[in-house]
């Protein structure tokens, strides 16, 4: 990086002469090395999926879930530094709880995403803090239907129809772009999400991973829940079959 040795990358509160805040850019580097996370918005819901890299065979299978729930109707998947992500989630939970307490209804997704991103952005302003080393994909359903947002270390919060972050984001994004998001139904979205995570993992094959899949839609009563075991298994089966098929065509 061009900044190394110049001293302009040591503090959040100092711009470089060409107008960059390097600490924030380094935070994005942390994200780029994390396991892939994606989100897909379909007709009446959203699917979240992560490639959870398993760092030790001694860990219990299925433990240490990466996708978390912020409120009944909101889920979040993130790539980057896990502890940063967990802290961000707990901030999101506080916001959702306080909204519920003030107005006696669930917080809407745009409001929640805005509030979380303000918190992330505030961590780019001061020399006393470090930016968040995560990009978080926030998805859920509210009174206006399904929503999908991605919040980045610099505080950006954009709405997406399909979002991807982490190491395999490039592969994932090009796959997401191929999907016909207007006509996608829940089951197909889940299967495609599984396929994309498996595909994105191809470049990182030396590491073990576990797939996590959650969704929120009318079908789940507006709740953010894990994809049922049966559909999960079907999705994995589909993903593996597609991977094999793809290989054959290449050969």
């Amino acid at each position, binding site marked *: 990086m061009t900044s190394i040795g110049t001293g302009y990358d040591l503090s959040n509160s100092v711009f470089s002469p060409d107008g960059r805040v390097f600490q924030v850019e380094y935070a994005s580097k942390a994200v780029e090395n994390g396991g892939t996370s994606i989100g897909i918005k379909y007709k009446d819901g959203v699917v979240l999926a992560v490639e959870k890299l398993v760092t030790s065979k001694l860990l219990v299978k299925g433990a240490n*879930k990466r996708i978390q*729930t912020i409120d009944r109707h909101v889920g979040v998947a993130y790539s980057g530094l896990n502890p940063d992500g967990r802290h961000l989630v707990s901030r999101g939970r506080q916001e959702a709880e306080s909204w519920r307490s003030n107005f006696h209804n669930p917080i809407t997704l745009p409001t929640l995403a805005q509030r979380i991103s303000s918190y992330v952005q505030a961590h780019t302003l001061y020399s006393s803090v470090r930016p968040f080393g995560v990009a978080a994909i926030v998805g859920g359903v509210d009174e206006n239907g399904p929503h999908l947002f991605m919040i980045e270390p610099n505080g950006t919060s954009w709405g997406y129809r399909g979002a991807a972050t982490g190491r395999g984001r490039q592969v994932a994004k090009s796959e997401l772009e191929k999907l016909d998001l207007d006509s996608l139904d829940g089951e197909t979205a889940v299967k495609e999400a599984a396929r994309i995570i498996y595909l994105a993992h191809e470049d990182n094959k030396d590491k073990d991973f576990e797939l996590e899949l959650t969704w929120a839609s009318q079908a789940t009563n507006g709740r953010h*829940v894990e994809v049922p075991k049966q559909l999960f298994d079907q999705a994995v089966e589909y993903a593996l079959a597609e991977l094999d098929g793809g290989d054959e065509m290449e050969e």
Partner: protein
Amino acid sequence: MEHHQANWGRPRNDVYGEYDFAIHNAGSHDEPTTRTLQPTVTGSSVIGIKFDKGVILAADTLASYGSLRRFVDEQRLFQVGDQTVVGISGDVSDMQNIQDTLDQLEIEANYDADGYPGPTAPSIHMYLRRLLYYQRSRMDPLWNSILVAGFKNDEPYLAYVDLLGVTYQSGCLATGFGNYLAIPLLRKLVDNDGDEKNVTYEQARKAIEEAMKVLFYRDGRATDTYHVAVITKEAGVQIEKTKCENMSWKFASQIKGFGTQKE
């Protein structure tokens, strides 16, 4: 010009007397702390009975303001988690506060998909016991009597807790007037611990309906529409709204000393 509000534009001191500076100096900071010392809008009885496969809870839809029928369509039975219903009588604002607290409890139980099945009836009852006992110990009580119904280790569970933090369990329970009017009827079915094993859903449901009818007959703060919650292992929680049926008010003509009657 005298701008001080205690002096400016006042009636003449020699006619109306000196200004009482205590009025000017009065502020919220030296007023005593105030607490709920009596309930305001209240719900009447909640009643419950166990049967062989579960528990039934019932509470009418009326929220009274003293003797006024203030709100006629309030729901006082709430589902918490998959297999528990909480029925609340007493102050309605305190009830809504408890409802919000339990709702948040349920949300937090589902934050992580970690296999934790969520709060059970005994744990919710314990939570409410500690909450209500804490508030009573601060001399700032939540003015309610509460029934918690659900399952404990696959066995029907029914427990009581009130504003003092008093708790107990039994095969049939009631709050408020239900203690005097409903319990004798319900104990015909479930008197001893374990009697519920010989009681069918139909029998228990009938007893609840009879008890709600008697409460409407004799409790001046009761109404004839009520919610019934049925909790079973197979079907989980089902809450429906219903009305007292097949009533007979013949006995009313025998009551003397009220209204326009001379005697």
